[in-house]
């Protein structure tokens, strides 16, 4: 049986190839095709054949006959030549169009880069479609829900042993270790990963054994960046890095160096050791616990395996594996202990599943920014459309002539489209270059982190984009122009330059988007200012905090907290000697961090209760200026306070349902001896996205710890020391801290934070979004103004005679200005009115993200309306004033 190469490739060859060459060329290729097919099989042969056909496209082989000269190629050349001449002839309009398109495209591309980066997070793993991260949701009813994407350590083997669909399961734990021996130890975040981690994920090992990057528990792998940081230019492989593990300092040998993990990865670390260390790092209990969440567990499914099969079996496996493990006194019920699997590529943009080791982005923001980029581009396209349609009058004769000479409507459409495509291609060329150059500026301005490597295939995308944008922008004018009736044109009659309503509609739409963006920017700015200036019920100006360390010998949490306080006391007595430092205090959490200790228990009536816990010293209230509503705060040297006194915030009093809180106890049997001595006002200790939650404040956490059943410490509860610096230069304050710290704890690296900066950082993503929207707004104002400028010129030009006659009849320049401006004002007013409900709807949705929000004031609409009216009048006044002042003799003399 004979085989034939793909027909379509043959047809392509016959299409482009010169007829005198095609027979032997085809024969040669066909001969080679058969040989390759024999050796390598059909698919390879087909691909090779197509490849040869493509490679045979050479100038010497392309058709040289008459057919080609008449074809679309030649016409295109002619069309582009005419297009260039037309663009050149009307330089003012062309440059307005070009400029608007460049800005629109640049803005669109920059925002597009951002959106693309956000949605392509974690997409670089070749097995990404089969990788899932597990989560655990315990639900015992009555709001007793514990939802985590950190999972118990035993999950790795749970997945591998019980599900034949699972090819591999790996752990990823992030933990902080003190790195180094002797002086200047640095606190680094170190990943603890399963030895077969690199078989699931596509991180690149540059040096070391690719199959076994972490052969023993004593090995460590490091990133290139950290290899430079720790070993300079020396070869890091085989060198030693020491970590403090428990009470000991343990040496690890560098067994591999991996390529720096790229930004768009949810898994990101610079140092990693093997989970074979887990036996020394975690207690036996933690290793086997069902309720102790530590690691992110990733699952790689076998090829072709279905995730639904795994999910269906999950509850059976859980129940059979847990056996008689129980929660509290009751045996585990079905659907109480739920394990779920989330696709790897879903992690970055899914805020519904709790945070794991990496922060996630708000998909709403990504969507909004993408939409804004598109809107700005649309404004630029409308510019082109309205301006070209407006110009069409001047080209009516050209159209008529072409039609008489036998041009089809299709040919004319094609001609005018090539004009717009030419212009967008030029704009795309400049805009794309701009965007690449502007990435660093854009990153700095907005705090985003866009990394973009230029690759050749991007050119194809840009070309395609230029084609699409050009077609969209040019299609309306092309249809209008080609639709002119030949007889009317040549008779000299007036042509309607397209339906006025369509064009007016477009202008209204353009204004609408611009006014909407202006209002949005103002509202966002107002909300962010509200967040940053809202009285939190605390004072935190010039307050510096530093994280204390617990001594390694302290094992239990309460001991480590106490040890942190003891260390803090040493530092405190040294700092208090400085006159410019005052209000030195300590607390287990400070303001500006989320995830304060979250504790839960069931009270004596079986009601599930939860609250947050703060351990402080006696100065804490004073340093932050926290006011007492009832009772008193803690007192220095009061033994009772240091042992058992409790202060609640107002929300906690309501949550526990206490009528007379002073002297009362928390509802619950298991708590140690304690007594409520005071109630504070509801100061805002977490970000204003959420409401104030019940807070229990103590000096000694032990009585509270005795009575709780669940705890979650997202923020480390090891105490921080805070102080107010009264000097003029804050950096001197940190210098003092550094000096005293190094004298006291020579082995530990010092650290500091400004509380006000931390609080501001909570609204970073909102502030960033606001900056991006502001930039887009300014650009859209510029583009819309350009369009308006061009449009006003067209209107004025078409009314030169009318203005002349009116002036002769005695019209004043002002009345002429009014006449010309009226049309635009009506369009602008319609746009403003339409924008109001849209803005209110969209902005209310955005403001719903915040528990504490500003209202959308009327004055915001007033400001944005006034601003857009003012800008519009400024823009159109340039041409109208000139037209109104012109001597009527000049405009009426020539006929």
């Amino acid at each position, binding site marked *: 049986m004979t085989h034939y190469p793909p027909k379509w490739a043959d047809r392509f060859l016959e299409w482009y190839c010169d007829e005198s060459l095609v*027979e*032997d060329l085809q*024969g040669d*290729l066909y*001969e*080679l095709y058969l040989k390759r097919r024999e050796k390598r099989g059909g698919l390879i042969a087909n691909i090779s054949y197509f490849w040869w056909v493509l490679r*045979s496209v050479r100038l*010497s*082989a392309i058709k040289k006959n008459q057919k080609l000269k008449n074809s679309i190629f030649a016409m295109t050349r002619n069309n582009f030549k005419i297009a260039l001449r037309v663009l050149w002839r009307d330089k003012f309009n062309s440059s307005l169009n070009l400029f608007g398109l460049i800005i629109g495209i640049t803005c669109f591309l920059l925002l597009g880069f951002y959106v693309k980066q956000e949605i392509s997070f974690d997409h670089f793993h070749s097995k990404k479609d089969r990788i899932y991260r597990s989560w655990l949701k315990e639900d015992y009813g009555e709001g007793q829900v514990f939802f985590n994407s950190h999972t118990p350590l035993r999950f790795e083997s749970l997945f591998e042993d019980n599900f034949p669909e699972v090819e591999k399961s790996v752990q990823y734990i992030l933990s902080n270790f003190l790195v180094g021996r002797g002086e200047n130890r640095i606190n680094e975040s170190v990943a603890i990963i399963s030895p077969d981690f690199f078989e699931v994920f596509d991180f690149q090992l540059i040096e070391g054994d690719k199959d076994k990057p972490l052969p023993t528990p004593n090995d460590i792998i490091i990133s290139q960046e950290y290899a430079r940081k720790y070993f300079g230019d020396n070869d890091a492989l085989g060198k030693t890095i020491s970590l403090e593990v428990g009470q000991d300092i343990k040496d690890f040998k560098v067994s591999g160096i991996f390529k720096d993990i790229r930004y768009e990865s949810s898994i990101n670390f610079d140092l990693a050791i093997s989970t074979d260390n887990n036996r020394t790092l975690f207690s036996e209990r933690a290793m086997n616990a069902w309720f102790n969440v530590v690691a992110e567990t990733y699952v790689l499914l076998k090829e072709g395996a279905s995730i639904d099969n795994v999910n269906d079996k999950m509850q059976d496996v859980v129940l059979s594996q847990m056996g008689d493990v129980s929660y509290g006194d009751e045996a585990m019920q079905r659907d109480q202990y739920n394990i779920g699997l989330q696709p790897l590529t879903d992690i970055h943009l899914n805020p519904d599943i709790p945070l794991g080791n990496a922060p996630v982005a708000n998909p709403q923001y990504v969507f909004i920014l993408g939409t804004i980029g598109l809107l700005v581009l649309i404004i630029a396209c409308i510019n082109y459309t309205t301006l070209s349609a407006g110009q069409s009058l001047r080209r009516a004769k050209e159209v008529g002539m072409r039609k008489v000479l036998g041009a089809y409507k299709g040919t004319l459409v094609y001609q005018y489209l090539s004009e717009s495509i030419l212009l967008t291609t030029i704009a795309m060329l400049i805009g794309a270059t701009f965007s690449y150059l502007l990435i660093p500026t854009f990153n700095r301005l907005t705090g985003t982190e866009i990394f973009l490597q230029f690759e050749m295939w991007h050119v194809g995308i840009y070309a395609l984009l230029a084609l699409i944008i050009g077609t969209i922008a040019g299609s309306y004018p092309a249809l209008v122009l080609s639709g002119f009736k030949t007889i009317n044109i040549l008779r000299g009659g007036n042509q309607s330059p397209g339906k006025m309503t369509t064009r007016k509609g477009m202008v209204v739409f353009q204004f609408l988007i611009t006014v909407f963006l202006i209002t949005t920017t103002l509202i966002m700015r107002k909300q962010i200012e509200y967040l940053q200036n809202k009285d939190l019920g605390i004072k935190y100006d010039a307050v510096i905090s530093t994280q204390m360390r617990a001594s390694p010998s302290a094992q239990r949490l309460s001991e480590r907290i106490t040890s942190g306080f003891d260390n803090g006391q040493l530092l405190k007595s040294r700092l208090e000697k400085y006159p410019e430092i005052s209000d030195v205090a300590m607390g287990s959490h400070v303001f500006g961090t989320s995830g304060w200790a979250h504790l839960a228990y069931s009270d004596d009536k079986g009601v599930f209760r939860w609250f947050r816990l703060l351990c402080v010293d006696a100065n804490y209230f004073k340093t932050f200026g926290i006011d007492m509503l009832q009772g008193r705060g803690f007192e220095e040297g009061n033994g009772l306070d240091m042992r058992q006194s409790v202060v609640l915030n107002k929300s906690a009093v309501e949550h526990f349902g206490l009528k007379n809180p002073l002297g009362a106890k928390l509802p619950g049997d298991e708590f140690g001896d304690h007594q409520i001595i005071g109630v504070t006002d509801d100061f805002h200790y977490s970000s204003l996205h959420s409401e104030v939650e019940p807070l229990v404040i103590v000096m000694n956490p032990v009585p509270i710890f005795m009575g709780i059943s669940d705890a979650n410490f997202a923020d480390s509860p090891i105490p921080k020391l805070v102080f107010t610096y009264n000097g003029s230069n804050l950096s001197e304050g940190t210098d003092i801290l550094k000096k005293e710290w190094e004298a006291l704890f020579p082995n530990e690296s010092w650290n500091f934070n400004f509380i006000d900066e931390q609080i501001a950082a909570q609204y970073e993503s909102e502030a960033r979004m606001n900056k991006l929207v502001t930039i887009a707004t300014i650009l859209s104002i510029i583009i819309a103004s350009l369009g308006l400028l061009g449009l006003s010129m067209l209107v004025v030009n078409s009314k030169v005679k009318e203005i002349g006659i009116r002036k002769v009849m005695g019209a004043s320049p002002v009345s002429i200005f009014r006449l010309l401006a009226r049309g635009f004002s009506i369009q602008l007013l319609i746009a403003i009115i339409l924008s109001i409900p849209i803005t209110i709807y969209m902005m209310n949705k955005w403001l719903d993200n915040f528990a504490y929000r500003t209202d959308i004031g009327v004055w915001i609409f007033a400001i944005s309306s006034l601003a857009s009216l003012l800008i519009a009048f400024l823009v159109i006044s340039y041409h109208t004033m000139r037209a109104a002042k012109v001597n009527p003799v000049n405009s009426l003399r020539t006929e």
Partner: protein
Amino acid sequence: MRGEHLGELEELVLLTVGSLMQEAYAVAILEEIITNTNRKMDVTAVHSVLRRLEKKGFVTSEMGGATSDRGGRRKRFFTLTKAGRRVLDETMELRLSLYQKMPKLTFSVLS
């Protein structure tokens, strides 16, 4: 002189055309070059070189008889022209004379 210059690949193809005598068509030339020089080559490159050589007048071509294989398509056979022969001779002479000018000493130094 312009048009008389031979590129490296052109020279190779021209030599092969000469050596294959009456059987020189693109696929045969390609295979001959691959077996002799062991270099990776694409048939499209041979086509393009042959067309160039024909334009320069170093080879002529004519279509062969109908074939039963290769989809019934005829082959295009190439033959060396006098000009082609001359330019090959000149190139060889030039190389040989340059080669012989090279002092023998160099090799002993290098080895």
